[in-house]
């Protein structure tokens, strides 16, 4: 619309001013009002109307009408950031000691945290690479005993595979494979021992192991064929194995020929299962017919479900398969577990998984978080303790118009800067110590810097550390009142309570970890040194491979001829790692409803003597073959179960052989310390015993050379291989030992960080109180009383920390120990020692600075003003 009288117009200048300051929301209305007013006034006097217009505009310049200008002009944000960084660097340079403490704490904390994260990432990535891992299941078998115990085993009756394939439409693919076996393979001049499995054709369908050469549909079929790993192929066929390997023949144990039909990529670190060869399961079943029965389990069975299949329905149906197919003779419900969960959740109790390595993953993750927290607390404590030194800076900044948010930003910037610097140093340290870390944990972790996850994690750590350590200073320091902070030294903010609480928290964590370390290493020492019922030192085991097995009599006799050899025996398995059991043993007077799984060990003469076991009742096997094959030894546990006053001479039937009990062997540990000792029958058998055990004297080197010579004489085709029983025993607890050493190291780290913080705090308070100390000294206070004065408050904190940490530690360690059937008693002394150690280290740290403060010449401290 056009103005009706163009010559009468509101004055332009006031209008422009109005348009500049007026809230745009109100502008249209106000302009209209003013214009209407102007026109009505202009009918009297244009000049006056213009004047009034200007006056009205002036009067409109008031809150409520003026538009909201941005509180800040955003252009100087970048400059402020640079200013903050500059200030932080100057601060760091000015107080080098505190900076060093801060950085050292953060570096150590971050480096430990990174190492743990790498370890955790490695643990949690195991077996996750299978493409169908979200529907890839392993079958477990629960053996329900009549006393209510449930033993869970991987060994599943082989016929289940066929049932799954034909009767379960939900199942996509199935595979079974045997336990890990080791054979000697030979191709022309090259020979080596390799481990692997007999597996059914579904293997490469169910799992995502990569077949490099060969047709996945045609490998592992019924004929005598083998697929080998690229490692093994390289060993046997050289660099051009891709072209040469297929169609070649490899001899196993100098007996059977197998044709190579494929080469797969060696599973590698991401897989919990390692193997170098796979042979069709048919080859195994044909020879070991016992395995193809619903009553025996010799295979691990895995299958994938079709996408969208009803897992619960399959689970319910599968549970009954063994019970159904044995006409309820075997009460053995089956259980399904996602294969990807098995590595971390591999411990079963009452037939369901109750944990396993996940326990250690949790413990170490918690430690990682604690360590980061400890280091951040140092930063917080020092920043707030030293706040009074920065009071003026904050005051001046506020006077110059800094908002609280700007100040917070400043402290966050400072904290983040420290975090960045520490992360860079920590990454370098991690990179350097990683080989040692791998050695300690038995892993082969390496950092791939090309992986964006690495950078994301590092960035995340910087952010987290910056936030954690910057938050409290940012809130507290920015809240200073201008007047007070400019007046000079203000009181420290936040009160001592908060700082003390944080120090207490740090020490509580340290005490917790240290007492945990004590208990874990004591338990491990207990396990590793416990009298296991046999003498495990200087005991060598040799598998009877090749011609050794056929000529075992000759071999035994030549071994006995070696002067360093004390005793020789043969056994079907290592006595600390039994692998055979039966549910079918009977004896007169046995409750017909009793279901009991009994371990069976087949041995030759001299077994008890060679092993250093004790006969508690009755007698050992004698050398008379015919007599002994109808006689058994049992262990004390089984003797208790049988319930006879004197079991010697009583009848027993095992695997179809009826004989009498010759004697009772003192209990020995034949499985891990997590499980109680199980019942055992030792039977005499020349056929089944396939491992020689040789007791040698302390002259180990000579003994082994002689044994090697004798072995090579009889069995020249095979390389000489042996194992020490004590090493084998220690290897069973490798996981526990590596976790124990990790916890030990990180407990040390935690106390180091806590002490750094304590050092910073005590130095600061000594500086703050230098005048007070001077005055006290002038009045005759002794050095020792001054040290006590300065250290007293920290002693109190450590005692509180001890009181908090001990019950927590007791609680958690009792749970950890509860998993072991054989364990140490936790006595109070352990905790007291942990407390005293922490206390001593803390006290040393505090008194170091207190002492030098107390020694200072009062003239110097009092002079300066």
């Amino acid at each position, binding site marked *: 619309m056009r103005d009706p009288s163009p010559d009468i117009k509101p004055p332009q200048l006031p209008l422009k001013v109005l348009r500049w300051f007026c809230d745009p929301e109100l502008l249209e209305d106000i302009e209209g009002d003013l214009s209407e007013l102007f026109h009505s006034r202009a009918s009297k006097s244009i000049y006056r109307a213009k004047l009034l217009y200007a006056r009205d505009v002036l*009067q409109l310049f008031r809150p409520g009408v003026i538009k909201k200008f941005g509180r800040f002009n955003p252009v100087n944000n970048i400059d402020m950031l640079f200013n903050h960084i500059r200030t932080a660097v100057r601060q760091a340079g000015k107080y080098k000691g505190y900076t060093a403490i801060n950085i050292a704490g953060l570096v150590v904390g971050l480096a430990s945290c990174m190492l743990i994260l790498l370890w955790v990432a490695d643990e949690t990535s195991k077996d996750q690479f299978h493409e169908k891992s979200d529907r890839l299941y392993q079958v477990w078998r629960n053996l329900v005993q009549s006393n209510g115990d449930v033993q869970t085993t991987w060994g599943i009756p082989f016929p289940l595979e066929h049932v799954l394939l034909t009767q379960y439409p939900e199942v996509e693919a199935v595979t079974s494979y045997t336990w890990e076996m080791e054979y000697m393979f030979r191709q022309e001049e090259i020979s080596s021992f390799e481990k692997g499995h007999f597996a059914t054709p579904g293997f490469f369908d169910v799992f995502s192991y990569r077949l490099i050469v060969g047709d996945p549909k045609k490998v592992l079929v019924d004929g005598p064929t083998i697929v080998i790993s690229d490692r093994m192929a390289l060993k046997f066929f050289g660099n051009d194995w891709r072209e040469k390997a297929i169609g070649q023949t490899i001899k196993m144990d100098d007996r059977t020929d197998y044709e190579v039909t494929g080469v797969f990529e060696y599973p590698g670190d991401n897989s919990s299962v390692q193997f170098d060869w796979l042979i069709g399961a048919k080859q195994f079943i044909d020879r070991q017919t016992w395995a193809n029965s619903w009553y025996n389990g010799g295979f691990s069975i895995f299958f994938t479900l079709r996408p969208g299949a009803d897992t619960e329905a399959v689970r319910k149906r599968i549970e009954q398969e063994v019970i159904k197919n044995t006409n309820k003779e075997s009460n053995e419900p089956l259980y399904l577990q996602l294969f990807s969960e098995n590595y971390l959740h591999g411990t079963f109790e009452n037939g369901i998984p109750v944990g396993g390595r996940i326990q250690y993953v949790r413990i170490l993750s918690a430690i990682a978080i604690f360590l980061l927290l400890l280091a951040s607390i140092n930063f917080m404590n020092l920043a707030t303790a030293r706040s009074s030194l920065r009071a003026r800076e904050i005051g001046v900044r506020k006077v110059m118009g800094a908002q609280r948010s700007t100040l917070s930003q400043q402290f966050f910037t400072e904290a983040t800067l420290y975090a960045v610097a520490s992360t860079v140093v920590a990454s370098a340290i991690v990179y350097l110590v990683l080989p040692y870390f791998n050695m300690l944990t038995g892993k082969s972790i390496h950092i791939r810097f090309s992986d964006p996850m690495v950078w994301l994690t590092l960035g995340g750590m910087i952010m987290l550390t910056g936030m954690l350590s910057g938050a409290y200073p940012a809130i507290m320091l920015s809240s200073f009142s201008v007047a007070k902070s400019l007046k000079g030294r203000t009181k420290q903010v936040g009160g001592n309570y908060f700082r003390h609480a944080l120090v207490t928290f740090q020490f509580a964590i340290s005490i917790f970890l240290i007492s945990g370390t004590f208990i874990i290493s004591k338990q491990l020492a207990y396990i590793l040194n416990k009298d296991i019922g046999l003498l495990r030192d200087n005991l060598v085991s040799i598998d009877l491979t090749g011609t050794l097995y056929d000529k075992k009599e000759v071999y035994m006799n030549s071994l006995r001829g070696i002067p360093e050899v004390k005793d020789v025996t043969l056994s079907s398995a290592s006595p600390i790692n039994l692998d055979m059991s039966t549910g079918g043993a009977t004896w007169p007077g046995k409750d017909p409803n009793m279901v009991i799984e009994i371990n069976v060990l087949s041995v030759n003469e001299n077994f008890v003597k060679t092993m250093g076991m004790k006969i508690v009742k009755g007698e050992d096997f004698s050398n008379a073959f015919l007599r002994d094959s109808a006689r058994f030894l049992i262990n004390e546990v089984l003797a208790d179960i049988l319930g006879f006053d004197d079991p010697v001479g009583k009848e027993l039937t095992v695997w179809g052989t009826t004989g009498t009990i010759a004697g009772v062997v003192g209990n020995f540990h034949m499985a891990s310390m997590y499980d109680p000792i199980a019942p055992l029958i030792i039977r005499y058998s020349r056929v089944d015993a396939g491992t020689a055990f040789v007791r040698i004297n302390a002259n180990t080197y000579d003994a082994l050379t002689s044994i090697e010579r004798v072995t090579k004489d009889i069995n020249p085709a095979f390389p000489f291989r042996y194992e020490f029983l004590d090493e084998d025993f220690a290897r069973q607890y490798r996981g526990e030992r590596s976790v124990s050493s990790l916890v030990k190291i990180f407990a040390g780290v935690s106390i180091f960080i806590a002490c750094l913080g304590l050092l910073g705090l005590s130095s600061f308070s000594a500086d703050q109180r230098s005048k007070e100390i001077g005055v006290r000294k002038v009045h005759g206070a002794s050095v020792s009383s001054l040290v006590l004065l300065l250290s007293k408050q920290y002693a109190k904190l450590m005692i509180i920390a001890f009181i908090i940490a001990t019950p927590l530690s007791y609680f958690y360690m009792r749970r950890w120990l509860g998993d072991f059937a054989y364990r140490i008693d936790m006595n109070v002394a352990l905790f007291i020692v942990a407390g005293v150690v922490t206390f001593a280290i803390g006290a040393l740290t505090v008194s170091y600075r207190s002492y030098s403060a107390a020694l200072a010449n009062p003239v110097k401290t009092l002079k300066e003003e």
Partner: protein
Amino acid sequence: MTSKYSLGEFEEVVLLTVAVLHGNAYGIAIKEDIELRLKRNVSVGAMRTALRRLEDKGFLESEFGEATAVRGGKRKRFHKVTPLGKKALDYVMNSRRKLWDAIPATAFQFK
């Protein structure tokens, strides 16, 4: 009034005038009505602030009306008393009345 409904004296006048001018309460009309009826001078700025405050407090609501030539093509913003505004006015009046009622008859007998 710091109690339930905070309403200043001038705000009360403006709010009442908006009610008086029911349906035609826009800036200049309110200003002129107050000047005419109450014989007091009202500046554009003061009135504008009062209107904004009343609107912020929820006693008024407004919408744009038509534009006219005399307003330079700018639309009018018409104001209306909300139910809450009505309550506030009632409250103010009641409190005044209570006070009036409480005054003893003798209080205003000036000699």
